[in-house]
C-alpha cells in the first residue's frame, strides 16, 4: 500500500461527523410531509432511530440508513464499525435485521484494495447480524465514507420506540461511553495505552445480543446512544413529558476517556451536544471530565433501555453474563423542573 493511499481522517470521523441536532431540526421542521398515514408507526415526528411502517398486524418494516467518514486507520475495522453502527438502529427499535445495502463514497485515485477491506468488514458484520447483503451504491468522492441502509422486521406490538418509557422505569446502558474522546485523543497521538483497542472492541460489538436478551423483559423504551451523546439521546427519550435521575458514578466509561477529557481533547460535536442538551441537564457535583464523557458523541454506542423496575437487576445480570458492560444508570421520574438530573457522590 503506497503511503498516500492510507486513509486519513483529520476532520473527525464516525458520529463526531454528525450535523448538530439544533441545526438539523430547523431544516426538518420545514419539510413537506404529505398526508398522514396511520401505518407509519415511527417517522420524522418522533425523532427516533429508524422509520417503522406497518404491513400487517404482525409485521412492520424497520428502515434505517447510516454512513460516515472513518474514525480509525484500519479500513477493515472501519467497515466493521460503520456496519455495526448502522445495524444498531434496527436493534434499538426491537427489530431483527433482514437485508442491507452498502453505501460507499470513495476517491477514484485511492487503492481499491482499501475499499475491498472496508466492504469485507461491513459484510462480516451483516452476516453476524443474520442479515443478507443485497446490493449497494457507490460514488466517487474526495473522501472515504461508508455505511449501510438496513431493513429489518419487527412485530408492531413489540416495537420499542425511544420515548415510551414510564415513571419508575430503570435505565440500563449496555456499552461504556467515551469512544469519541478516545478516537480524538488517538488522532493527536495522546490516547492512553490500550484505550483505542478497548474503544474499537466496543464499537465493533453488535447490539444484537443486547436486543435479543432484552426482548424477554418488560422494556418500555429503547434507543441507541450515538452522535448526540448519552445525554442527548436521553433527552429525546424523555420526549418532553418525563424526567430522570442519573447516577453519574454508575455510568460505564471506557478506560482512557476520562484522561482524554482531563487533557481537554474536546470534540466539536461534543461541544455542540453541550450547547444543545446542556439546558435540560442539571449537574450535581459531577466532575467536568465526567460531564464531557456524558456529552461525548458515540459511534456504534450501546442501547439505552427503559425497563420495568422489578426486572432491571435481572436484565442487567443477563446482559453482563453475555459479556456486555451493562449497568443500571438511573431511573425515569414524573416530569420535574429539571428534565435530567445527574448526581455524583462526594
Amino acid at each position, binding site marked *: 500500500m503506497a503511503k498516500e493511499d492510507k486513509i486519513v481522517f483529520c476532520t473527525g470521523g464516525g458520529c463526531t461527523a454528525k450535523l*448538530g441536532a439544533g441545526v438539523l431540526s430547523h431544516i426538518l421542521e420545514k419539510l413537506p410531509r404529505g398526508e398522514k398515514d396511520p401505518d407509519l408507526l415511527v417517522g420524522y415526528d418522533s425523532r427516533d432511530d429508524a422509520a417503522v411502517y406497518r404491513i400487517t398486524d404482525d409485521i412492520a418494516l424497520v428502515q434505517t440508513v447510516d454512513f460516515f467518514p472513518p474514525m480509525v486507520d484500519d479500513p477493515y475495522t472501519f467497515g466493521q464499525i460503520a456496519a455495526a453502527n448502522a445495524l444498531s438502529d434496527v436493534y434499538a427499535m426491537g427489530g431483527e435485521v433482514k437485508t442491507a445495502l452498502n453505501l460507499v463514497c470513495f476517491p477514484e485515485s485511492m487503492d481499491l484494495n482499501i475499499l475491498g477491506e472496508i466492504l469485507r468488514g461491513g459484510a462480516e458484520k451483516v452476516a453476524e447480524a443474520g442479515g443478507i447483503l443485497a446490493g449497494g451504491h457507490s460514488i466517487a468522492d474526495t473522501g472515504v465514507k461508508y455505511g449501510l441502509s438496513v431493513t429489518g422486521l419487527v412485530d408492531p406490538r413489540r416495537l420499542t420506540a425511544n420515548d415510551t418509557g414510564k415513571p419508575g422505569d430503570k435505565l440500563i446502558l449496555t456499552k461504556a461511553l467515551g469512544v469519541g474522546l478516545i478516537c480524538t485523543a488517538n488522532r493527536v497521538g495522546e490516547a492512553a495505552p490500550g484505550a483505542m483497542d478497548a474503544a474499537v472492541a466496543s464499537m465493533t460489538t453488535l447490539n444484537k445480543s443486547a436486543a435479543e436478551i432484552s426482548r424477554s423483559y418488560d422494556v418500555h423504551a429503547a434507543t441507541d446512544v450515538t452522535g448526540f451523546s448519552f445525554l442527548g439521546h436521553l433527552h429525546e427519550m424523555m420526549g418532553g413529558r418525563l424526567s430522570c435521575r442519573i447516577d453519574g458514578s454508575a455510568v460505564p466509561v471506557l478506560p482512557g476517556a476520562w484522561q482524554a477529557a482531563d487533557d*481537554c481533547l*474536546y470534540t466539536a460535536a461534543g461541544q455542540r451536544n453541550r450547547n444543545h442538551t446542556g439546558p435540560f441537564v442539571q449537574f450535581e457535583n459531577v466532575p*467536568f471530565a465526567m460531564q464531557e464523557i456524558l456529552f461525548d458523541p458515540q459511534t456504534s454506542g450501546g442501547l439505552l433501555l427503559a425497563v420495568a423496575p422489578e426486572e432491571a437487576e435481572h436484565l442487567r445480570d443477563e446482559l453482563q453474563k453475555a459479556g456486555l458492560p451493562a449497568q443500571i444508570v438511573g431511573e425515569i421520574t414524573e416530569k420535574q*423542573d429539571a428534565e435530567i438530573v445527574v448526581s455524583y457522590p462526594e
Partner: protein
Amino acid sequence: MLKVDARGDACPLPVVKAKKAIAELNGAGEVEVLVDNEIAVQNLTKMAQQKGYRSAAEKLAEREYRVLFTVGEPAAEEEEAPACAPDARTDTVVVLASDKMGEGAEELGKTLLKAFIFSLTQQDKLPKTILLYNSGAHLTCEGSPMLDDLKALEAEGVEILTCGTCLNFYGLTEKLAVGGVTNMYVIAEKMLNAGNVVKP
C-alpha cells in the same frame, strides 16, 4: 506573547496547539489563538476554565476569532493572597431579561440598555454574574451591538451566562459569541445566592 494560528484546524487541534504554546511560556504570559469557528472558541474557553487561565474571545471577522489566554503565576498563590489583589467583583447579579431597558419606545429601550452595559464596564465594582434570558439572549449573540462591552466585562472576570432554552427558542444556539450557556436551575440558584439582583 505567543501566537498560534489554528484557522482551518478541526477540534481538538486548536486546543492541542494552545496547550503546547502555553507550556512553551514556561510560566506567566499571554497566548493568542486564532480559529475559524465559534465551537472552537467555546472549546478553548472550556480548556481555560478547567486549567485556571483567564481567557477572552472576540470575533475579528467572518470565520475569524481570536482567543487570548492570560496565564498567571501558579494559580494557588493568587487564591491564597486575596488581600494583595482585591477582587473588583461584588456579589451582585445583573439580570437582563429583555433586549430593551424600561417600557416605552423600542429604539430608546435598546439605546438605553447599550448605555447601561457600557456604564457597567466603567464601574469600580463589577457584578459577579450577568444572567441573560428571554429576548435578553440576543445580547450575547452575533450581531449584538454590545458584544465588545460584554467581552470586556468577561475579561475582567464577570461571569456571563445565557439561558440555553432561550437560545434554542430563538434559533441562536450556534450564534452565541460571549460567555456560557446555562439552565433555569443555575439561573434560580445564582439569583437566590446573590447579594443584590439588579434588573435594569
